[in-house]
């Protein structure tokens, strides 16, 4: 009996070790390397930073971090990234929630094909899809031609190379990451709960607000994190769809890396970006799980 539990325990631990090993190998180790570079001194050479341990002692500097706060460029980029990612997440939620709900409530044999349609764009390269949006949004593009043919506008709208195009690109690209976890939560909802609400006299809207919505919070949180986190560091979409004035952390990071060859400076920015994102998210997660536990009690 004892041995059996012990064995089961070992099996569970071994299974848990797999994702941990993955995280250590592909997240923690690379991050530690970047963190180490961020504290090194820049130099002209291979590699372009001084080794940390040398014969004359330890070479560590916070210069890479200090230059982040010389003026408000990077703080501005940080705040701007949060704003853009936050707004894009909200838009994804507003568009994605009805989609997920519709799929979850669709006839069972239609759900598969509908989900397939959500996932289908992933079969083409992300870059090609962003380029396609350039063709849609440009002055002489599909959208403007359509609007002009319908007589809605007489002059083409300038959308490409503005922040609006950046939002369109981010919302489009990350929408599936919102829809899928939401669908997973909504699909599991017991429909008899809604029937009960209706029996008790709740109109559909009321039932949605007090039954469906609260029960789908885990899906909302998961989807929002899946959209928000990559959107904050987004680099390709503002580059291709924006006009160069979309000051985001990803683009700022690229400028430091490519224009100055300052690996420690770029690494410091990357570490700061991660810290500025991971810490609030970790706090949020902890708060949320505590609330859930209290709710259970």
């Amino acid at each position, binding site marked *: 009996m004892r041995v059996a539990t012990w064995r089961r325990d070992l099996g569970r631990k071994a299974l848990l070790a797999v994702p941990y090993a993955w995280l250590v190998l592909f997240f923690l180790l690379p991050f530690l390397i970047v963190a180490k570079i961020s504290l090194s001194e*820049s130099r*002209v*050479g*291979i*590699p*372009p930073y001084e080794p940390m341990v040398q014969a004359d002692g330890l070479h560590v500097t916070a210069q890479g971090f200090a*230059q982040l706060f*010389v*003026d408000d*460029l990077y703080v*501005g*980029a940080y705040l701007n990234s949060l704003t853009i990612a936050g707004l894009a997440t909200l838009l994804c939620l507003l568009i994605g929630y009805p989609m997920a709900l519709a799929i979850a409530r669709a006839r069972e044999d239609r759900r598969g094909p509908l989900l397939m349609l959500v996932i289908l764009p992933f079969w083409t390269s992300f870059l090609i899809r962003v380029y396609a949006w*350039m063709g849609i949004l*440009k*002055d*002489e593009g599909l959208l403007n031609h359509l609007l002009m043919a319908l007589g809605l506008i007489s002059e083409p709208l300038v959308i*490409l*190379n*503005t922040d609006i195009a950046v939002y369109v690109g981010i919302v489009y690209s990350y929408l599936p990451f919102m829809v899928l976890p939401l669908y997973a939560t909504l699909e599991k909802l017991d429909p008899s709960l809604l029937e009960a609400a209706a029996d008790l006299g709740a109109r559909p809207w009321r039932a949605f607000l007090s039954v469906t919505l609260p029960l789908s919070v885990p899906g909302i949180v998961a989807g929002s994190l899946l959209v928000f986190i990559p959107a904050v560091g987004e680099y390709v979409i503002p*580059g*291709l769809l*924006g*006009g*160069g*004035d*979309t*000051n985001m952390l990803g683009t*700022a990071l690229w*400028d*430091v*890396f*490519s*224009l*100055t*060859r*300052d*690996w420690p*400076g770029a690494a410091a920015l990357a570490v700061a970006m991660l810290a500025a994102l991971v810490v609030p998210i970790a706090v949020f997660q902890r708060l949320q799980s505590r609330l859930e536990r209290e709710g259970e009690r």
Partner: protein
Amino acid sequence: MFARLTRFAAAAVLGMAATIAHAEERVVNVYNWSDYIAKDTLEKFTKETGIKVNYDTYGENEALEAKLLAGKSGYDVVFPSASPFFAHQVKAGVYQKLDQAKIPNAKGLSKETMASLAKVDPGNAFGVPYMIAATGIGYNVDMVKKVMPDAPTGSWAMLFDPAVASRLKSCGVSLLDTPTEAVPAMLAFQGRDPMEQTKESLDAVMGALAPLRGNYRFIHSEKYRDALASGDICVAHGYVGDLVQVRERAAKAKKPQTIAIAIPKEGAIVNIDVMAIPADAPHADEAHAFINFILRPDIVAEITNETGYANAVPAADTLVDEALSKDPVIYPPQEMQAKLYTAPPPAGLDFDRARARAWSKFKAAKK
């Protein structure tokens, strides 16, 4: 029994021969820009020398530099732009000295090009020129005429004169996303030394650029090619080699556009792409053989004919298509050549940081 033995021995001998041949198989690992060589160059090289070529391509100097600075790239021949990339990499100790005895064809290289390359690589110790192209302005002739019939098309004023840029804004103007191109161009427009790299000159340039920000539809180093070819913008700051390809494409498009290219009269940067051998190249001998082969007039002329970039081998000029060799933006006439300069080598981390920061801020300012 005997027959079987002989067969066995024969197989063994054959096998050994194969191993020896394999050990002696010579290879060279080449890392070049995409679309930057003639179709059969590599094939011809292998046929003549027996050296197999492993050929990889990149799209940006930064991609090459990141690999080189990380070390142990495994490449034998690379093609960085002379300045600031090659210049910085030479300082960082990325390359090995070329063995001139193994590159006899280097004697046929243009003295002028070698001299301007020597500014970033004293004595031409580490690299030889591959292809050359200036940075200039590409514009849509009809669109510009419509908005501003008297536009100063041969001048940086198209981009940097507030009175001009604010009018061209309506049909779309773009800038290259790199201060190493934009800052010297603005200095040339201001009548200053484009090679200057002082805090004062940087402030003067950024001060003049800031109020112009709203006139640039986008600041990007690649997007302008499609945008100019399809008539989405009318003026682009761009690399002449790219612009030549845009001009060709635009002329053949469904809605043909007439694109003209100008090397501004105030002077412009000329980009020399260099062939160099990393210090840790695994096949240095083969790399030298490859460079020597490329510098042969008939070979380099074929590359020019296919890519539209000028080469630095005067003996190849007669072999280059006349449409290219007579084109003043590809082979600039003597008086223009005097106004072409190589971008200054990196001034140091402090200046680079100040310039990168100023550039990021300029870009980020809301239109």
